[in-house]
């Protein structure tokens, strides 16, 4: 089976500093893949490279069998790979509805219309249905800058999902979200994404979240992939616990969380 997303010997250097090296990954349709690593391990660099935000120093990125090296983010998005951000990237002075309407219009066509109205009944219906999927419909008329962090994160992800991508990359979806809200947020996101059948890669620091929501795990260390496999196996790995997580994990407790 051809992988949906594949990287071959991907590397990125900034002068003498190697941010990423020897990254070989294959992501198949519908997979839910967690990505862990300490700060500076290369997780965000990896996401930035595959989404076209950053050009790799060397290596190849194949999406649907085609090399997308050198493609701009908008071109990568049009091919079917979207992302959310560690800091939600929204239009803060516009309302939630306006954010979604703009995202819809842009996802529909890269050539924007000059004279047809942005706000149509059909677009508003779709927007409301999407916001309902992400459980933020109650904020539809609120200005984004006034919203809590968790709602902004959900809106950021909802906007990334509007074009119904084949692969969704989530950069720390729960960062800045209150501990008690993390699981709710991830459950909402995963339920909404599951409907679309998109493969998901999500960068996460919280091992409870990783254990519960990912079926496969990539552990980054020093710009390289230290381990790649089923989540529980990678979390049990001594090297991963020592070098990536930084402490011993109580697997029984983690499995309890995962099954909760």
């Amino acid at each position: 089976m051809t992988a949906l997303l594949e990287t071959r010997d991907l590397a990125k250097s900034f002068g003498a500093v190697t941010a990423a090296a020897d990254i070989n990954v294959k992501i198949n349709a519908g997979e839910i893949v967690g990505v862990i690593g300490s700060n500076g391990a290369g997780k965000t660099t990896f996401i930035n490279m595959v989404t076209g935000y950053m050009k790799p120093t060397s290596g190849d990125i194949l999406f649907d069998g085609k090399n997308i090296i050198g493609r701009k983010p908008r071109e990568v998005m049009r091919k079917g790979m979207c992302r959310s951000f560690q800091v939600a990237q929204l239009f803060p002075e516009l309302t939630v509805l306006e954010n979604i309407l703009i995202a819809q219009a842009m996802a529909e066509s890269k050539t924007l219309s000059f004279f047809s109205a942005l706000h149509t009944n059909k677009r508003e219906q779709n927007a409301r249905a999407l916001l309902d999927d992400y459980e933020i419909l109650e904020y539809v008329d609120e200005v984004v800058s006034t919203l809590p962090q968790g709602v902004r994160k959900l809106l950021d992800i909802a906007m990334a999902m509007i074009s119904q991508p084949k692969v969704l990359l989530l950069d720390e979806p729960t960062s800045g979200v209150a501990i008690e809200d993390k699981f709710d947020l991830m459950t909402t996101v995963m339920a909404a994404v599951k409907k679309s059948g998109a493969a998901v890669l999500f960068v996460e620091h919280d091992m409870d979240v990783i254990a519960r929501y990912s079926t496969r795990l990539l552990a980054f260390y020093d710009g390289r992939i230290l381990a790649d496999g089923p989540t529980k196996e990678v979390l049990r790995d001594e090297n991963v616990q020592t070098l990536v997580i930084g402490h011993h994990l109580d697997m029984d407790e983690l499995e309890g969380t995962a099954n909760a």
Partner: protein
Amino acid sequence: MLNKNSLILLVLAVALILIGLVMPYWFSFLVTVALGKGLVVLGLVILMRAGLVSFGQGLYYCAGAYAVGAFSHFVETDNVILLLAVAMLAGLVISSVVGLLLSRYRDIFFAMFSMAFSMILYGVLVKSAELGSSDGFNVTSPSLFGFAPEVNGGSILSYWVAIILAFVFGAIIWRYFKSPMGVAGEAIRENEIRVEYLGVSVQKVIYIKYIMAAVLASTGGAITAMTVGHIDPEMAYWTTSGEFVFIALMAGTGHVAAPLLGAVIFELLRSFAFQVSPYTWQMILGITLLAIIIFLPKGLWSLKDKLMKGAKS
């Protein structure tokens, strides 16, 4: 079939055209020049809604005026439709080239680069003896296939043309501001990264907006040239561009009517200030702008929203 708003606008436009027949010439002259500038400011507002402030719209204002002047002089025509078309074409062609560079820049760099290009045109015109150097040259009064009625001591045709263009462009831009392309400006102002990740080229959108603003500015320059009957390089000087920014800040960017009304208010205010204090009239304008920025930071148009809110509560 016209809806209610379109009908009101049409009636208003016809009323203003008819009022021109009884209006004193000095006032129709002032309104015509103001609407010419209003069109330039309308273009500036398109850019400002995308987070870009151009200090160089004088480039297109002047190019439109000189296109009218040069074309009427060398081709020997006074046909208003032809002259307007030539002015718009001049704005379109120049901005298509300059925009390729400017659409890559933002913030102060965009502002300064736009000013630099207008100053280049100023420098070229000042040194062009064929175009009258720093004195400029006179432009013949326009006609519509020989039709050029005089009312109260002056030609009314430019006034009518200005009113019609203000309404036509106003309606087009009003519709445009509600379209995906129009709203893309606000999206870009708020977050360029997200726009790129939604699959749209920010640079391309800004390029198109820049050209639209330029065509409006060159049309404004054409109206001014045909009304005043004289053009000179000062039209490209940075203070002229600054005046457009002044009007935009004073009027606000909330509605297409704001820059057009703002330009009329500005011209009236300047006339009044000049009459009251011929040597320090700039001070009156400065104090007015200061007061507007302090009390109405979103411009005079925001007063309407405040009044409507007050009326509701």
